[in-house]
């Protein structure tokens, strides 16, 4: 099995999984918080926040990558600050790839959670209040369980987007084997060199397999949640 893929290909697969899982995991909590704020909040700048969150969905990925380079690059304002204060460098590192993937997948995550928040019967939350529950408790005991299917769907979308992200990643962190070369970048590289068709095809199959597995898992989890929690 191991010799089916070359070491370089394995590295790309492992890196892709790592980047996608980190991107998904890191965007989960902010995703829930922002979805909640956008759906329930009445605050100044809500519209602007909404637009900001959705921008990556409509902008060319290369533009997002370039903006990240400007902001989070070594000389970018945020990048320089992070490097000086915390020694965190994002550009041309796998962590940068994770950031790019997280941002590209964020609108999908937020949308999925928001849609499920919309369907929650507000009376259920009202009832909890009248039964003596603090709003924070209401969120964790009532709202969160009810939107779990939406959260799972959002996580899968975010993960899948990260697995397939190419434009923003390659612009921001380039295509460095072992550091930032994810499956899509590796496939791209293979297609650029003579005799690379085999590698490209193998990675394509791996990519398809991972996507199917992710979809299947989310379906399974969502069904479990629904059976346990919802009518």
């Amino acid at each position, binding site marked *: 099995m191991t010799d089916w893929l070359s070491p370089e290909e394995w590295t790309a697969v492992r890196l892709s999984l790592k980047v996608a899982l980190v991107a998904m995991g890191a965007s989960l909590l902010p995703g829930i918080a922002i979805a909640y704020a956008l759906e329930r909040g009445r605050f100044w700048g809500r519209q602007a926040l909404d637009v900001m969150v959705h921008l990556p969905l409509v902008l060319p990925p290369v533009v997002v990558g370039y903006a990240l380079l400007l902001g989070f690059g070594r000389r970018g304002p945020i990048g320089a600050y992070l490097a000086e204060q915390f020694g965190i460098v994002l550009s041309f590192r796998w962590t940068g790839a994770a950031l790019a993937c997280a941002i590209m997948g964020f609108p999908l995550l937020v949308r999925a959670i928001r849609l499920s928040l919309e369907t929650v019967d507000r009376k259920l939350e009202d009832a909890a*209040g009248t039964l*003596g*529950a603090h709003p924070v*408790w209401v969120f964790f005991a009532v709202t969160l369980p009810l939107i779990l299917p939406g959260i799972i769907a959002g996580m899968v979308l975010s993960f899948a987007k990260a697995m397939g992200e190419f434009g923003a990643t390659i612009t921001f962190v380039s295509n460095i084997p072992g550091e930032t070369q994810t499956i899509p970048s590796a496939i791209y590289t293979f297609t650029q060199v003579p005799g690379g068709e085999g590698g490209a095809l193998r990675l394509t199959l791996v990519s398809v397999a991972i996507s199917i597995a992710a979809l299947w898992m989310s379906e399974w989890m969502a069904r479990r949640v629904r059976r346990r*929690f919802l009518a």
Partner: protein
Amino acid sequence: MANVSIRDVRKSFGSVAIIKGVDVDIQDGEFVILVGPSGCGKSTLLRMIAGLEDVTSGDIRIGPRVVNDVPPKDRDIAMVFQSYALYPHMTVAENMAFSLKLKGVPRAEQKKRVGEAAAILDLEKLLERYPRQLSGGQRQRVAMGRAIVRDPQVFLFDEPLSNLDAKLRVQMRVEIKELHQRLKTTTIYVTHDQIEAMTMADKIVVMHDGIVEQIGAPLELYDRPRNLFVAGFIGSPAMNFIEGRLEQAGLALPGGVVLPLEGHVPAAPGSELTYGIRPEHLQVAPAGAPGSIPATVTVVEPTGSDTTLIAKVEGSHLTVALRERCALKPGEAVALKPLGQQGHLFDDQGRRIAAA
């Protein structure tokens, strides 16, 4: 348990006034029903008592405390919603124990109290089920159980029976009333159904267009409605109204019939008045009987226990409720005679001014 007092409470959404100054006093242990057509503000008022809507102005007290700015969780109330609002991800037992879990009541005690409420509501066999596995009536009972277990100062019910079929509604009506007689907890109940109000309440608050039209015991509202709105809203079939002009001999109705009036009528001769008479206070009389109104039968509705007769008179229709069965056929001419002093006279502002 506690009394609830509502003082000059107003509510506006933006520039739209929904509740325009309402005063209601609810005694400790009383069962009070807020009733009115949809859009009258009754549900909004209930949600304000619950703390789910802000009070624009005025005071709401539960017990001695003004609760305007107290969050719902600290008002010591329990609300039952029309949609039941049961948690789909919790079993019946978990739903009912919700408030106890919040208070940190030990598990054994939770179980005991849920068990007691379940026994009252006949839910013992359903405790491990999920709400989706229950019928509408059972869900309703679970929602009540969840409220009972909280042992609140005040129960709030928001149209709790509206989603049930007619037969179940009658049954649940009885159950809620029995429950109140047993627990004696102050209860505020919102409905648009005046029959629910009449059958269940100690005191009815009739609301219309953001104001209180009348407050009183059910039969008080029925026998002495303060105005045309209450007269027409309370009672089924509804009260009959005929416009007329006050004359020396009585009330001149359209078509030349003069209805003799007994007693003093505090209105000037020539005033335009509305005469109201309940369907059961009209009798079928021999044609031409003095003081009777000639009419033509249009519809006969036998319900088994009684018969409803709808008859056309000059300018309007009259409904007559007869206890006995009747052989009248559509198209037949009849004379309808009001029972003495059972009618009501309303002035041109719609205020009741006298019995007639």
